[in-house]
């Protein structure tokens, strides 16, 4: 009896526990955050959440700090992503050949991705240290003026980009390397017959064939780079001032330092729509390249 009941509902029995988790730990919290974005609440038991309609969204769009955070997010994300893509593809092409120590090279490349980001962020703080850091020592050794790096409003975001580039270029590189091993050989053979140079083969055959792979890698990175939290919070906490305050950091500050839960929720809803929109746009771009190639 029980056995046949289980047999019929097997599909639901195996998925139910995970489904419950998704409902309780994901769907409910998202609905809660969405609802909270129409309320004003500072988590005090004495004053319950107060309905304010769209006021949080209006306040958010009038908030200069929000627009600044949006700009910082765009600057950081696209700067890091562009560099990671170019470097990742270049390094993948460099490593995609037989040489002694290829295994070791791949292993070393794996490490920045898996090493604890907070810990590595703090290592970078020491590297960037204005008075004792190695970077300034190197600059001075070649006769240049020392920089403030993470401590300067103008240099902080590029300095953070360098950390992200160090951490995540290997990701793009590994995906592109996997893509390189699946490329067909025929185009290269006919190119050899036509006497194409190495550079021509790279530009007219390899890169176009790699396009879908590169776009996949870019999409995966984009989803994560926009939400970068650990290395920024560990190294600058959004500072100096608010110079490196991205949307994720500002959302965190609003929620857990100022306890403006309603405003923070409205920011997160806008932020989510942004991530979603960009992801969908990239999916469409990728699909179009597949059709045309």
């Amino acid at each position, binding site marked *: 009896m029980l056995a046949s009941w*289980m*047999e019929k509902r097997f599909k639901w029995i*195996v998925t139910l526990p995970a489904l419950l988790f998704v409902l309780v*730990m994901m769907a409910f919290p998202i609905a809660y955050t969405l609802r909270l974005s129409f309320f004003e609440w500072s988590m005090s038991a004495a004053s319950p959440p107060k309905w304010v309609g769209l006021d949080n969204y209006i306040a958010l769009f009038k908030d200069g700090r929000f627009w600044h955070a949006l700009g910082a997010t765009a600057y950081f994300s696209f700067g890091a992503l562009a560099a990671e893509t170019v470097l990742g593809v270049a*390094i993948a092409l460099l490593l995609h050949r037989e040489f002694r120590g290829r295994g070791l090279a791949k292993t070393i490349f794996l490490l920045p991705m*898996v090493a604890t980001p*907070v810990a590595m962020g703090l290592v*970078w703080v020491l590297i960037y240290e204005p008075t004792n850091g190695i970077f300034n020592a190197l600059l001075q050794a070649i006769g240049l003026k020392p920089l403030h790096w993470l401590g300067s409003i103008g240099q902080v975001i590029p300095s953070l980009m360098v950390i992200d580039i160090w951490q995540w270029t290997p990701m793009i590189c590994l995906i592109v390397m996997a893509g390189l091993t699946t490329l067909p050989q025929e185009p290269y053979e006919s190119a050899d017959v036509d006497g194409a140079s190495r550079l021509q083969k790279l530009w007219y055959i390899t890169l176009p064939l790699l396009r879908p792979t590169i776009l996949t890698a870019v999409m995966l990175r984009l989803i994560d780079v926009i939400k970068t939290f650990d290395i920024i919070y560990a190294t600058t906490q959004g500072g100096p001032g608010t110079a490196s305050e991205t949307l994720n950091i500002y959302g965190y500050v609003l929620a857990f330092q100022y306890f403006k839960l309603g405003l923070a929720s409205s920011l997160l809803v806008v932020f989510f729509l942004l991530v979603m929109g960009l992801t969908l746009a990239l999916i469409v771009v990728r699909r179009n390249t597949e059709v045309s190639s």
Partner: protein
Amino acid sequence: MKKRNAFARLLSNTATWLVLFVFSFPFIWMVMASFKTQVQIQSPGNFFWFRPTGRNYAEVFNQYHFFKYMINSFIVAIGSTLASLLLGLPAAYGIARYRLNGLGLTILAARIIPGISFLIPWFIIFNSLGLVDTYTALILSHMLVGLPFVIWIMISYFEALPHEIEEAGAIDGCGKMKVFLRIVLPISGPGVMTASLMSIIFSWNNFMFSIILAGEKTKTLPIAIFNFLSYSEVNWGGLMAAACIITLPVLVIALAAQKFIINGLAAGAVKG
């Protein structure tokens, strides 16, 4: 022509090793500084020649109680991974065999949605239930990291298994549950290994969920090292020793199980 090839090879070999040096430099720097005294770290010029000291490591364990935080990190990483496997393995099997793509996509949403949008409600709820600063809250929150890995890695693993294996089981009179437990799971070792390692590493590294949901009792290593910054003068040697201690287990896993980790990191790419 031959000469040019040799030159090209020399050039690309040099470039390769230069790139590798640059990417491993922060690790080299971290390890070196962890054996330096505060004075040695603060006197530029003597970067590579110094008398190593083990004092920083002793300090991290004795003064900063890192052993306790390490235990906390282990409990949360192992706990959330086991729970993710328990929920994720059957679910992935169901999704793979019955093409329940909706559920699969919903779980993938965990990767796209900013983590803080989960964190605000969790904090409010866990707070009212008195669960902040408990392993339960940390394990539940870290499952949001582990479960998507388990489900997505295992869906593609189960989909790749030949149907004949299960059909043979069904002919032998095994129920579907028995086929899954006795036949499918035992041959899924490599997939489970990849999923578990990814879940453990990313729980071990998690900072955002733990910084809000952990307290004095359950503080994990990333929070403990971040707290180094709250002292008036940063103890750089101690901080770097702490960084070495935190990253060492992850690096060892990555080196020992390189193939699994590359598969795991690429899992998203395959599905993208």
